[in-house]
């Protein structure tokens, strides 16, 4: 497997622009600048790259939706608001290979005819932002950014914009709303950001990992990228693995890699007991029982078929000392805390579900409360402005269904 993203991440000086270039950095950008802008989009389309933030939408297609020659500015926004529980892959890229992101953004901006771009970094990653800013400063000094893009008459500015603590701002329209200086309330779609996003202009929001894959794709060609992975899930992905494993961390594997191999090989195996359950893609995806993990491969289609989702690739491993209702209560508290409050079902539903679970876990719940959780999930699902409510529904339904007896045992008899 070719390491697309983590090839140089262990080199301590990778953040230095000269070292970055020595190791082949900014060659992708150079190649892109010699192509037609639309040809760059075609290359990314052909690679099969899909959004790595969680939604998995084909990146080239997203870029292709942006209308050209509207007279309005086009914006590329990098979503570095990584806040999905279990996910810490973007942090690694930002901390250890920021120039790769800058290069990817520069290529994307060129393809989209964008001249002003922002990296929306979650506020908690302020210390990480220092590193990224330093890399940006180096890029400007090397005239890669600024009035000319690596010598080409194409001005490009990239600025960092720090969030201040709101998971919802990882949702693209909420990110745009927050960047515009408001409370991070997601927006109604349509209109879609490609047509009307930041300042009512065509906008593309891409995840850090997605943009970091772009330089490699342009430099080595779409065919080389799509040679990796499965038929519909091309390329490689970063998986953050944590919980009851002996070597937690972020690993890059080809899509289609078996989940159990990631757990047992890269992550060194389950610790403190037998495997009980795995959340494969961040807290917003349905949980898998140990049995369900057998034979499952890490790609979009296989996980969907297994009843879960690839999501952000945040893998959390649970051994058999864990009480699943307690885990669900922690997750439910998260969504209740992070619900923006704009629309009724999510605002009230996440709060209510969290309270029921807190009660249950404290031993004060009753069996009908369990069915009430299903009811709340049904009332929230598909009726909200953004998918945060659905992100609460997935864990609630899957935990309660697959571990029902544990929930019942918590109930006051």
């Amino acid at each position: 497997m070719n390491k697309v993203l983590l090839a140089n991440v262990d080199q301590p000086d990778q953040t230095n622009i000269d070292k970055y270039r020595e190791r082949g950095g900014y060659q992708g950008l150079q190649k892109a600048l010699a192509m037609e802008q639309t040809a760059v989009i075609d290359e990314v389309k052909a690679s099969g790259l899909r959004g790595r933030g969680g939604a998995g939408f084909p990146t080239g297609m997203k870029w292709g939706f942006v209308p050209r020659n509207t007279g309005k500015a086009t914006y590329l926004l990098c979503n570095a608001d990584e806040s999905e529980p279990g996910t810490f892959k973007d942090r690694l890229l930002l901390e250890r290979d920021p120039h790769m992101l800058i290069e990817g953004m520069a290529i994307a901006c060129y393809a989209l005819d964008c001249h002003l771009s922002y990296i929306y970094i979650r506020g908690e990653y302020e210390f990480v932002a220092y590193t990224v800013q330093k890399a940006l400063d180096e890029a400007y000094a090397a005239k890669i950014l600024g009035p000319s893009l690596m010598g080409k008459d194409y001005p490009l500015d990239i600025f960092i914009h720090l969030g201040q603590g709101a998971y919802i701002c990882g949702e693209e329209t909420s990110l745009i709303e927050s960047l515009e200086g408001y409370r991070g309330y997601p927006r109604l779609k349509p209109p879609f950001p490609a047509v009307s996003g930041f300042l009512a202009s065509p906008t593309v929001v891409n995840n850090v990992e997605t943009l970091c894959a772009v330089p490699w794709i342009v430099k080595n060609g779409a065919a080389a990228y799509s040679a990796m992975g499965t038929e519909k899930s091309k390329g490689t992905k970063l998986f953050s693995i944590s919980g009851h494993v002996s070597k937690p961390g972020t690993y890059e594997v080809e899509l289609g890699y078996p989940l159990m191999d990631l757990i047992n090989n890269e992550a060194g195996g389950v610790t403190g007991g037998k495997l009980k359950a795995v959340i494969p893609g961040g807290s917003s995806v349905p949980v898998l029982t140990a049995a369900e993990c057998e034979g499952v491969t890490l790609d979009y289609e296989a996980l969907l078929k297994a009843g879960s989702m690839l999501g952000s690739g945040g893998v959390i491993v649970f051994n058999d000392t864990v009480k699943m209702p307690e885990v669900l209560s922690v997750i439910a508290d998260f969504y209740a805390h992070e619900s923006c409050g704009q629309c009724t079902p999510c605002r009230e539903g996440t709060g209510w579900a969290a309270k029921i679970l807190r009660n249950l876990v404290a031993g004060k719940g009753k069996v009908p409360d369990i069915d009430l959780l299903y009811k709340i999930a049904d009332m929230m699902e598909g009726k909200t402005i953004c998918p945060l409510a659905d992100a609460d529904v997935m864990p609630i339904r899957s935990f309660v269904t697959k571990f029902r007896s544990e929930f019942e045992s918590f109930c006051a008899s």
Partner: protein
Amino acid sequence: MIQFNEEAMRRYQTIISHYPEKRAAVLPVLTLAQREFGWISPEVADYVGNLMGYPPSDMLSVATFYTMLHKKPAGKYHMEICRNVSCWLMGTYACVDEIKRRLKIEPGGITPDGKFSFALTECLGSCGTAPAMQVGDRYFENLTPQKIGEIIEKLSNE
């Protein structure tokens, strides 16, 4: 009368120069204001509103949306410890108990000398090095109750 000093004013000017519309600078400016004044009090919201030309209610409304902007005075060291899944699995609450024991405050509280405050927060992106906590622009990871003690000690002497 609170207002930005010269240095802060310069930063303010730099910030607004990054955006095609001034409104987009609101969050970074509120962040700057918190850096200068400690927390977003109604007075601070009023100042920022007047400075930028927006109603103070609007500025306070924006501030109250974001967890990292304080709505009440925070300690010199504001310890935010993650309570989410992986950290919880790996022992957050033992660390929380240690903080409570040493500082004698509950989450949301502040020590009488104003040096420490602490809160439970959501996933910090440190799941592989859990439990983790954030203090200002620093992360402390792979926490144990003992390490908590050492960190508090260290910060007390800074």
